[in-house]
């Protein structure tokens, strides 16, 4: 199979009159075959590529145009600017929910969607195909003889016992910048009060704030950070050097983000979208699944503590501007103490 991976980093794509920012773009499959599937996604090309390749193996005369954008840009493209894509794939469950709730998604049913577990489907509009836990990532090498925390209490105690060692070397999402960080943080507060205590400890230790998981993992790798909190475990696991890290799924509760796919209301070729969704779901669920995230990241180990974020209008609550403003100001006052 011929495959063109064209990278345009931070370009304004020609043909899209209004300007939403794309981060990357790639084309796969037989070009000029007529059948084009346009995907807009928050997932890196590398992460999602296996799915595309396996789909093209079954549907050789199809072309896939894969556009990577941040979740907020994706929201802008579909919700505000009405660009036509056949499939929207995002890790920002709240924004996906809002898109679907606001009527920007088509309903789709098939044998594959009907056999999904309840948590993986919403209103026949959103279909979850990954379960990605928010993990605590620790540099094995730099941690030395310190005991690895198993849950948030142990983490708090550890940080309190060794303030000098951890000062400035703890990292987490800047929830003002990162949609995913905000999602994880709000879900943490729903699960337990511990989150606020932890955030205060982070604030006291002058925690560093990041835009994205990959940056945090990289910082742990370079030794800049000892601990990164609420990092996408799948990203750490999918790295070649995964053995350098301890990827901890907190045993008190592990927040799990579900990556979801949605067929936008204005999809130019919805039949093809449906075929791709079926393929995506078949490969992601059931005993014979070959999920995108690394198999070593075994969620069944912490099944009891799993806190899958529920897709549904509850997620709209934290998108509410008043609610968000209140949350962010509380968060800021906890983490920015100087």
């Amino acid at each position, binding site marked *: 199979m011929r495959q063109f991976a064209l990278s345009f980093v931070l370009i304004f794509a020609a043909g899209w009159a209004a300007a939403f920012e794309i981060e990357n773009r790639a084309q796969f499959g037989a070009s000029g075959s007529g059948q084009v599937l346009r995907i807009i996604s928050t997932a890196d090309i590398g992460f999602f590529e296996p799915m595309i390749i396996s789909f093209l193996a079954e549907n050789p005369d199809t072309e896939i145009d894969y556009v990577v954008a941040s979740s907020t840009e994706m929201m802008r493209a579909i919700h505000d600017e009405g660009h036509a894509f056949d499939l929207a794939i995002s890790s920002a469950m709240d924004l996906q929910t809002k898109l679907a709730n606001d009527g920007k998604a088509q309903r789709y049913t098939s044998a594959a969607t009907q056999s999904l577990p309840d948590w993986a489907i919403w209103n026949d509009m959103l279909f979850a195909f990954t379960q990605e836990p928010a993990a605590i990532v620790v540099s094995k090498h730099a941690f030395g003889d310190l005991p690895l925390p198993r849950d948030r209490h142990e983490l708090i105690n550890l940080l309190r016992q060794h303030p000098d060692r951890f000062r400035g070397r703890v990292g987490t999402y800047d929830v003002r910048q990162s949609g995913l960080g905000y999602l994880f943080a709000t879900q943490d507060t729903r699960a337990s009060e511990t989150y606020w205590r932890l955030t205060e400890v982070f604030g006291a230790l002058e925690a560093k704030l990041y835009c994205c998981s990959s940056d945090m993992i990289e910082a742990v790798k370079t030794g800049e950070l000892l601990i990164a909190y609420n990092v996408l475990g799948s990203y750490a696991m999918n790295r070649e050097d995964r053995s350098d890290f301890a990827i901890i799924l907190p045993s008190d509760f592990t927040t799990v983000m579900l990556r979801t796919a949605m067929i936008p209301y204005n999809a130019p070729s919805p039949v093809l979208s449906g075929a791709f969704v079926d393929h995506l779901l078949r490969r992601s669920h059931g005993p014979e699944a070959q999920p995108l995230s690394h198999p070593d990241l075994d969620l069944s180990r912490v099944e009891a503590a799993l806190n899958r974020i529920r897709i*549904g209008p509850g997620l709209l609550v934290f998108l509410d501007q008043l609610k968000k403003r209140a949350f962010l100001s509380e968060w800021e006052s906890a983490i920015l103490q100087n």
Partner: protein
Amino acid sequence: MSKPTAHGSIRRRLLLSLLASAAVLALVVYFVVQSVARQVAQESQDNVLAASALSILDSARFFDGEISVDLPYSALSMLDSISDERVFYAIRLENEFLTGYVELPEANGLSGSVPAFRSAVFLGEEVRVASVRRRVSTDIGQSFLQVSVAQTLSGQKQELASISRRSMAIGAGFFLVSVLLAALIAQSTIRPLDRLTASVSRRGPKDLRPVAAPVPSEMVPLVASLNSFMRRLQLSLMRSEDFIAEAAHRVRTPLAIVRTKAEIVQRNADNPETHAALREMIHAIDDSSRTAGQLLDHAMVTFRLDHLSQDKISLRRLTRDAVDHLHPISELKDIEMEAVGTDDLIIQGDQILMQNALHNLLDNALKYTPSGARIVVTLLRHDDGAEIRITDTGPGFPDGEMDHLTDRFARGANAENVVGSGLGLTIVKEVVEAHGGQMHITNNAGGGACVSLHFPSS
């Protein structure tokens, strides 16, 4: 008799009207159940929406003259807990939009703190909206904080579909039960008619007693006129029997006188021609008086048949007596006549009628057999009853006529010069049948007539 023409059927008409009303009722049940269930479903959805809106309203706080609404997570998630629903909300302070979906329509008619509801189409789908409000005091004075919450109807539609299926099932079940009941009702309504029909058609041909069994009031006029019709029929029958008896009697008496006179004249007549004429005359008179006697007998039999007495009859006695009674005549004709069978048999019945029947049969045997013949009356016991068999050694019944010899006034070809009326066998048959028995006439293999009377054991 011509078969009455049937026009419609009471049972069918009853069944049809019951079924029609059952169908109407089933439809009504279906619609009532459905509309009640619809209302309940709507109300329960409204309640959930109102609870959600109120919980949002409760979360509003005023602080430093500024409003903060801490949208509760459950306020929206509860609307989605049973079925996946799209959910919308809007919060306004008086007419100033605070947060949510700016275009979400509000339910009108809010008064006080009672929630108001409306249905609308929002963002391409049907929704139900609940609105609530609360009076708050801000720095510019009193104003209303209003919260509207809306929800799509997919869960409700599912529920309604299942309700509709269920009410359909209820309606159908109701109808089925009604069909069963209707069949039973029609059956039981028609039963008195069936009973009457059965009781009338079970009767013997001469049974004209009034129907005495109780009947439903609607059938009383019918039965009353039936009874009066039968009474009239019986009366007119009786009258005609009386008339015949009277007529026969009136004819017989003068005939006897005429015969006596003729005999006297004949005895004194010297002229052989006159003698012969008088003999023929006497013969004719005998014939007529015999016919009159038979008519009288027949009338008597017919009359007694209606009021059959229930004597204990010893058949042995009966046959012996009959043979003895006719012995003088048999001797005169030089005919040997005897009754055989030692075993006595008892039946219930009318002694006089049985005697009459037996006399008729023996009389026939004496009439239609030549001198030197032999007549035997045999009494036989069978498993299922008794048999009296009268055989003679005469010429037997004429061939090909045996089928109708028992008809009234029917006489055989061999009866040409024999006095008779053709009523003898008729009387016998009627008597035997009135006793529940049967008469068979045949000819013996070796010649001679054979009449057998069967009586069932009572």
